[in-house]
């Protein structure tokens, strides 16, 4: 494992900087807090991108916390996959901070939001930068509790029960995960991922550990049939929170599963688990898409679309697992899954931000409230449409590249049966997005009340992320090259993908 001591020091910065900002933001009063949070956003995002640059220049980095080193201590670790997730969080997180600075107006909302949001950011960065099974659990706790508190901050009869249900599922998921970690430790005596390479899932004890680990993570990622908590929680939160939950938080537990399965799982375990995850993913795609089709409220439609898109992430497991046909195409399925996570993050954050702007302007978000907005809020509707292109997977968007690679990989690895699900999910996405956006291009009803003025920052932040989701398809070479750094597949396979 290459260890560049000079750079590895900086691995802790994306964790400590937002944590320090959260702490200071809870002490300071309004004017100082605004400046502090702007500085904290820049510092956090900047340090994340700096780590990305170091990993691109030097390869995977490792930092021994406390100077002990695994297995006694905890190691921070960053390779291509971690820094891509870190950079995704930096970009979306920066946009969320920008959006939230105009979205929240009351003193109480601001005092509640900023410390919790920076804590959520801390948890996400800490999760993407650790290589320790138990430390994953601690970071999941930071993420879940701050996310639940952010959903609950709005209060009222819709948000509070949604937050409580989210809390219960998140806690149950954490407990199951923790039980799995305990069994892994009982069997192997170590918690560091690199010391566990290929050792998870052997014997009855290993299989039980794996079942608990995976079950807990699936509940947190909202995979069918453990998805019921997601739509109410994501749709009833304030817009910047919805964006963070759908774009980033569900990716965190998915990331743990992706990272552990392709390094720590034994080949036999991965071969057994892969098809199960694929079937559940397929069911999630179909169920989420059909539910999205029947929603009459924009935010609920977007939330169900998140469920459907999460399903796609899990289709990579059966296609990329070892022994599934053409080996070079497995790596492409793996890359496609990561790329889908990135483009979905941009597109979904853009959609929730646009929905927040509409809710702010019209006061409602049912489909009839969209009437005439094509003329009256062109920037917001453009944001919704550009993000929609990526969700529908039309070229040249990031969503298209991801789903196209996944589709071809499924066929090349002789698993054509996933293809109808992938194509069907795309068609259903087109149906539910067009069904909603259609209303924006109908004429404004007579006697429609004037729109409440919307801060331009809300509209343009959403549009920027929508355009980014589109542009990811045109600039796909760099993320794919980054993902190849330290990937669990030979590097020359990725070169073929480029």
């Amino acid at each position, binding site marked *: 494992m290459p260890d560049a001591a000079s750079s590895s020091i900086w691995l802790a910065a994306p964790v400590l900087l937002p944590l320090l900002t959260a702490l200071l933001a809870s002490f300071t009063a309004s004017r100082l807090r605004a400046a502090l949070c702007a500085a904290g956003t820049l510092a956090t995002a900047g340090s994340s991108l700096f780590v990305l640059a170091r990993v691109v220049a030097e390869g995977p980095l490792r930092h021994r916390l406390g100077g002990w080193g695994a297995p006694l201590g905890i190691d921070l670790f960053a390779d291509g996959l971690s820094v891509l997730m870190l950079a995704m969080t930096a970009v979306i997180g920066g946009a969320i901070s920008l959006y939230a600075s105009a979205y929240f107006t009351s003193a109480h909302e601001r005092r509640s939001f900023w410390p919790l949001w920076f*804590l959520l950011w801390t948890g996400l960065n800490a999760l993407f930068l650790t290589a320790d099974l138990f*430390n994953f659990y601690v970071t999941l706790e930071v993420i879940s509790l701050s996310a639940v508190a952010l959903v609950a901050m709005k209060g009222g009869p819709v948000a509070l029960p949604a937050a409580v249900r989210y809390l219960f599922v998140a806690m149950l998921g954490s407990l199951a995960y923790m039980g799995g970690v305990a069994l892994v430790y009982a069997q192997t005596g170590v918690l560091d991922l690199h010391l566990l390479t290929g050792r998870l899932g052997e014997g009855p004890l290993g299989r039980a550990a794996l079942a608990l680990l995976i079950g807990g993570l699936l509940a947190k990622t909202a995979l069918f049939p453990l998805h019921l908590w997601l739509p109410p929680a994501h749709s009833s939160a304030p817009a910047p929170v919805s964006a963070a939950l759908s774009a980033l938080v569900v990716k965190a537990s998915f990331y743990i599963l992706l990272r552990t399965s392709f390094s720590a799982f034994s080949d036999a375990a991965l071969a057994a688990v892969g098809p199960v995850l694929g079937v559940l993913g397929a069911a999630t795609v179909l169920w989420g898409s059909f539910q999205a089709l029947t929603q009459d409220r924009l935010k609920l439609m977007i939330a169900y679309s998140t469920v459907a898109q999460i399903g796609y992430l899990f289709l990579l497991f059966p296609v990329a697992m070892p022994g599934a046909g053409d080996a070079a195409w497995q790596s492409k399925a793996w890359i496609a899954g990561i790329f889908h996570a990135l483009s979905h993050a941009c597109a979904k954050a853009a959609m929730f931000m646009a929905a927040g702007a509409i809710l702010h302007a019209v006061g409602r978000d049912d489909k009839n409230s969209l009437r005439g907005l094509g003329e009256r809020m062109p920037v917001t509707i453009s944001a919704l449409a550009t993000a929609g292109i990526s969700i529908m997977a039309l070229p040249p968007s990031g969503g298209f590249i991801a789903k196209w690679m996944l589709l071809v990989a499924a066929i090349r690895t002789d698993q054509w049966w996933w293809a109808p699900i992938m194509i069907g999910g795309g068609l259903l996405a087109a149906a539910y997005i067009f069904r909603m956006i259609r209303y924006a291009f109908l004429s404004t009803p007579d006697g429609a009340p004037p729109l409440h003025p919307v801060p331009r920052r809300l509209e343009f932040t959403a549009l920027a992320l929508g355009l980014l989701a589109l542009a990811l398809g045109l600039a796909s070479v760099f993320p794919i090259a980054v993902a190849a750094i330290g990937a669990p597949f030979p590097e020359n396979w990725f070169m073929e993908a480029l």
Partner: protein
Amino acid sequence: MSAPRAFIPRWQCALLALGLLPLLLALLHAVSAMPARPPNLAADVTARMPDSGVTHPLTAVLLNFRGYDTLLEIAVLWLAGLAALTLAPGASAAPLKPHPVLTGLLRVLAPVILMTAGYILWAGGFRPGGAFQAGSILGAGLVLASLAGLIRLSPSLGLRLGLGLGLAVFIAVAIWSWTHTGELLHFPGASDKWSILLIESAATISIGLILLTLFDRLTAESESNEKKGLKRP
């Protein structure tokens, strides 16, 4: 989806329990296959104990070998206190006037509580104890004082500073160690013992205050709901 149901029908609970039973049995079967002497890191911990600054292995693991986990756990506790404070604004649940009997009782108990908490904190270095246990005892004392009406919680800057103190000191020590050794939470030279004691002392105060905040906010919230005639969702 958006209209929550208050209760799950009993037959659904029974069905769920029945469905989970095979999973429980499978889990028990798996655990029974656990090796009689599971491999663990006890030998590593024992070997490195002299470098840890403390003589109790639990404290060495929590504050030194895996101090980063504890840093994030302290952040979680702080988050719980902060969330309770922001999600349930409103007046304190403590009585407005000090309760004479409880005040008298507290006059006797307070020194004992403080001394016990202080001892448990110090004892963490060489026997079971430390910030979490000491903080709970301190928290119990604070709750008693609040029930007696001697302290009333208000979301003031002072309280916010107190809640964040443990985390702030932990971060400060982490950054200080980083600048001296180049490794986060690698306490330089022989400073392990005093670094750990400093972190634990600050954490004890914050944990006590967090527990008081949770108690006060929950009781205030349920009392105000009862006044409004609202039932629990």
